[in-house]
């Protein structure tokens, strides 16, 4: 049985447990139909030309894991931003871990998708926002059909959340191979501010495939800072589908740090719905071995006087592969748009590959749209400068890699997180310098 068939029959089994009369059931049915028609994307799909899911679909994944797994805090503490106080939503093999989490209902809701879907007091929010973005994407539909658990975050108007919220998905390896589909809904009210950190972490070397969907809604003047840390083990793969809907005068920034995992596909989609919105997409990708990371971004400008900034840096060693496919659409009425896209890559070894493809579709006539893409090796002059000061070749390269990636780090607003990322980069590059990067 193919994985697709297995999923389709699992859905039938799932239906027995589900809310039958709720509108949610219709949404699920529609979604599974869409997935059934389209199936998993293949390299024939233009948007998947450089990324193949074929080998990922072979293992016999367990689709449900209903038992709450025990994970000892001392073993996983390092994956939390434990230097500071945070709200935490922790899931182990797709199941909520109350022991590791720290939720709240005090003025803001940081809680569970399962609760939000089932309790009537959340009904208006679910009806207004759930699954309102990207209904046609087959992988998103697959997630929608099976939606069960994930983060539900609702920030009321004018609330500045005083500490970051961490969403962490662990997998234990209790199953030989596990398929996880977390579903997150984040609604940020008018003039509210929030910082969110998302991480997927496997605790074993068993196969993990995650198909995650996150919907973020920013009401007018809201400010959202979202950080994705992708530093998983080499047997874990992630398809991240994130949709951001921005009303007027909002600022939404997503930083994606891709250092690990077997295959990572980031579908990051921004939809601007009002004037003076600012969308920022930044990423640092550092890969080695046979790792593959694909950044597929979309910024859809529909209103005038808006900005978007994309800055993705990639360092590719050994036989790793990177893809950057950045699409910017400017609709006819979206005049005075300032859309900027930058993608710089360094290939460290001969076998490393980067496929870069900017895509601009501009229907307005008064816009500023710029994109730049570079693929290069190390700047020999810079390398000589550092070596002439007595710094060895390996350390000099590390310094240059660090300097190269640094422009992306500048805008990280949580100092402790910035330090963490610095350390991850230093660790990834594999050197210890006379100071902490």
């Amino acid at each position, binding site marked *: 049985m193919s994985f697709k068939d297995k999923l389709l029959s699992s859905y039938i089994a799932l239906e027995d447990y589900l809310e039958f009369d709720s509108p949610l059931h219709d949404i699920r049915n529609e979604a599974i139909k869409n997935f059934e028609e389209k199936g998993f994307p293949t390299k024939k799909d233009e948007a998947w030309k450089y990324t193949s899911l074929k080998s990922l679909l072979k293992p016999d994944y367990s689709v449900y894991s209903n038992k709450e797994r025990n994970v000892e805090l001392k073993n996983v503490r390092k994956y939390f931003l434990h230097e500071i106080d945070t709200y935490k939503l922790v899931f182990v093999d797709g199941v909520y871990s109350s022991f590791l989490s720290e939720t709240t209902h005090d003025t803001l809701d940081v809680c569970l998708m399962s609760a939000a879907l089932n309790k009537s007091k959340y009904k208006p929010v679910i009806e207004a926002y759930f699954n309102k973005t990207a209904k046609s994407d087959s992988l998103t539909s697959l997630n929608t059909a099976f939606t069960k658990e994930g983060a539900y975050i609702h920030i009321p108007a004018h609330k500045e959340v005083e500490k970051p919220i961490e969403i962490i998905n662990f997998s234990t390896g209790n199953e030989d191979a596990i398929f996880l589909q977390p579903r997150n809904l984040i609604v940020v009210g008018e003039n509210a501010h929030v910082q969110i950190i998302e991480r997927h972490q496997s605790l074993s070397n068993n196969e993990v495939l995650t198909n995650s969907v996150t919907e973020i809604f920013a009401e007018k003047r809201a400010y959202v800072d979202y950080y994705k840390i992708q530093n998983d083990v080499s047997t874990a793969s992630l398809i991240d589908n994130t949709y951001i809907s921005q009303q007027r005068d909002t600022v939404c920034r997503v930083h994606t740090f891709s250092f690990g995992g077997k295959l990572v596909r980031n579908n990051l989609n921004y939809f601007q719905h009002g004037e003076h919105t600012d969308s920022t997409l930044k990423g640092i990708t550092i890969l080695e071995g046979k790792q593959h990371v694909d950044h597929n971004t979309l910024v859809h400008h529909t209103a005038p006087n808006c900005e978007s900034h994309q800055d993705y840096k990639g360092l590719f060693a050994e036989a790793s592969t990177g893809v950057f496919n950045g699409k910017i659409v400017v609709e006819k009425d979206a005049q005075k748009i300032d859309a900027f896209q930058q993608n710089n890559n360094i290939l460290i070894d001969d076998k490393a590959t980067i496929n870069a493809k900017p895509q601009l579709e501009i229907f307005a006539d008064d816009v500023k749209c710029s994109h730049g893409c570079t693929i290069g090796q190390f700047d020999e002059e810079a390398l000589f400068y550092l070596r002439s000061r007595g710094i060895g070749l390996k350390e000099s390269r590390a*310094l240059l890699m660090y300097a190269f990636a640094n422009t992306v780090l500048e805008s990280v607003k949580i100092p402790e997180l910035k330090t963490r990322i610095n350390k991850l980069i230093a660790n990834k590059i594999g050197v210890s310098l006379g100071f902490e990067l």
Partner: protein
Amino acid sequence: MLKIKDLHAGLEGKDILQGINLDVKAGEVHAIMGPNGSGKSTLASVVAGKEEFDITKGEIDFNDEDITEMDPEERAHKGIFLSFQYPVEIPGVSVTNFIKTAINETRKSQGLEDMPASEMLKMIKDKAAMLEIDRKFLSRSLNEGFSGGEKKRNEIFQMAMLEPKLAILDETDSGLDIDALKVVANGVNKLKSEDNAVLLITHYQRLLDYIVPDYVHVLMDGKIVKSGTKELAYELEEKGYDWIKEEMV
């Protein structure tokens, strides 16, 4: 200290240096002058170990050791320093962190422990004061957004910190106004001793008013065509380089 014997070097098959002979002893200051494209910067880079250039013939000795094939970092560890004409910008790495790394990497190569933080701090403070460098400057990213003058002053600051045996100053005077030039020259003079040497690469005589050379060499078409004392520099300033060409004919 530095002995260059019949050095031929080039880039992509093109000969730039065509038989350089130079002997710099401890305690001496040598100036290399010459028109644009004569090979001055190439000579500086080749001595510091830039791998881009092919050495086709000849030898570079440093303190009686053949360094012709040595890596740039090893040469730095042995005490060769090059002040760059165009220092490179390194975003995200502060001047202080950079110099700490450079010093401790050099110490590591000599089997020494890292310099204690307090000692490092004091040294940074003293040398920055000597070169009239503001403390805030030291926490900025290396060369990023620095003016031409700031970059050159920063080069001399690094030299002061690393205390090289041989300092090669490649066009350190270009881009400096007269006040900055005086500060930089004053710094170099203070660092000068009987145990170290300076090789000045310059286009103009102006710098030599402040750092007085023992010897002046004229480099043309990849060869040293004339050597003399500082008076030669004045003569070049007054008459240009053409008369040397005529003299050669």
